[in-house]
């Protein structure tokens, strides 16, 4: 039973990281790519960390896993925000699919 839970957590975590890499390749503009890489990668690393720390089942491993989870969830939005703020002014326009929503409101 423990084997099953740990295996499912590890497979799901690596699968979410793969999903975010596919999103990085397939989205059309930078905003969509950052949307893919920030959220799905954080969630995948979270699942992997829970699985691995359940496998070892020691106190210091749990503390380190908690540290990594807190740090990744604090810094991934900050890194994405900093990347978006550094974009060149000429690249600032969205693709046609992304711009459709904001233009219809006006």
């Amino acid at each position, binding site marked *: 039973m423990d084997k099953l839970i*740990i295996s499912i957590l590890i497979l799901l975590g690596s699968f979410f*990281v793969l999903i975010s890499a596919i999103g990085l390749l397939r989205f059309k503009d930078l905003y969509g790519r950052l949307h893919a890489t920030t959220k799905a990668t954080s969630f995948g690393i979270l699942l992997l960390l829970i699985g691995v720390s359940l*496998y070892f089942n020691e106190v210091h491993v749990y503390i*380190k896993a908690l540290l*990594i989870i807190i740090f990744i969830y604090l810094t991934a939005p900050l890194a994405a925000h*900093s990347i978006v703020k550094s974009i060149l002014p000429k690249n600032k326009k969205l693709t046609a699919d992304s711009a459709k929503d904001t233009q219809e409101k006006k």
Partner: protein
Amino acid sequence: MNALIPEYILYIAFAFLMLAMIITLIRLLKGPSINDQIAAMDLISSIIIGLILVYSVLISNAMYFDIPVILALVSFIGTIAVSTYISQKNG
């Protein structure tokens, strides 16, 4: 718990992570702007964290758990440094 995980599960996880690494390297090579390349670099560090975690399960050695702590810290500082440099260079 220390239940032995079957090895093929870990190899499938390795395959997922290496496929993600290859796809990210494609984006890193052909990324139109330098911001896409920074995003790809950020993702590569996360993939390496995942690889080290799966590898520590494969050899069942909890000592490897120190590396992701440092790697998460250093990759964040690197991303912030490069993107701040680019935004200040562009005025």
